[in-house]
């Protein structure tokens, strides 16, 4: 069974600045600032290609990165959803 499909806010509404390997993100819709570690920024970038479920996201990420197993992507998506940086379609 396919899992939930996720959406990220479009580019331009989230501002990212890399700071020593971490990334500070300003999320304009909420006005909140987040500091995130890889692979969170990469997941957000991959989601900007369009809504995707975890399996599709993994496929996109593995084009550019060596990516771990499915559990990692689920855990990171849960965190990003809690932070309000991704939401379910």
């Amino acid at each position, binding site marked *: 069974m396919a899992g939930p499909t996720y959406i990220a806010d479009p580019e331009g509404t989230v501002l990212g600045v890399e700071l020593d390997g971490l990334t*500070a993100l300003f999320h304009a819709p909420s006005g909140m*600032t987040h500091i995130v570690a890889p692979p969170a920024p990469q997941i957000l970038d991959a989601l900007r290609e369009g809504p995707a479920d975890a399996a599709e996201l993994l496929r996109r990420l593995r084009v550019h990165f060596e990516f771990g197993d499915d559990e990692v992507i689920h855990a990171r998506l849960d965190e990003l959803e809690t932070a309000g940086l991704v939401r379910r379609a």
Partner: protein
Amino acid sequence: MRHKLALRIGPVGFRIGSAWRAPLDALAALYAGYPEPEDGICDFTVRLEPERPWRRLIRPSVAIRGDYILPDAAPLSFAHALLAAEMGMNLQMALGHKSCLLLHAATVEKNGRALIMTGESGAGKSTLAALLGERGWRLMGDEFALLHMESGTLLPFPRAISLKNGAIRVMEAEVEASRFGPRLIGTPKGDIRHLRPNEEAVARMGEGAIPALILFPRFGETAAVRGVGAAEVFMRLTQASTNYVALGRSGFEALTRLVKTIPALAIDYPDAETAIGLVDDFQRELAA
């Protein structure tokens, strides 16, 4: 208001009104030599009022009012009215200033380059800034660093330095008596005595400086220096800012630009002389 005083501190014009004359006399003496607001325009108004109308004369206590207020701000005793005026000015800045990112930090300058010192209350940044201001640095401010968001420069905000407890004696040994306000005993923050910055700090209050180094000083430890990563600096400065959230995207851009462009160090120091030695060493390294 029965009594009024207007003065400029750095880029900000203040109007202070009071139901009593004495606090304004004390404030005028403390800020002797400060200019009037530019073109007579005041950015903020602070009002010192009796908690209830009849309390102006009977057991007076001072409530701080202004354009921006904290609903639960407790009134201060009349003996501490000068502190009330200072707190009122700080509050208006912290909540109302819009063109600068405000950091709860002390700043000093030498050769056009500024040092930002921030840390928890009691870390000694005020004392350190006050001492550096008498030892070849220009004091820009002991309470707020004003990072101008468009230009990225720091603007001075040389209000009176609020010395607490042990720091009072340290500065009394350093500076002539005429620059001190009255000693306020038993305030909610302990004993407080205000110190007027020196003539250079007042004369150059319109002159900004380029940020060069961020320091996180910590008093009471063996002397030590360590680098602090940009992400940690960013996080600590968002916490040290009074208006970061209110400024939104422009605050984020100004702060990330600052932490990406200048180094940051945490210093532990056992006494003020050691700290001043370390700061002078950093300054020489930056200038080299």
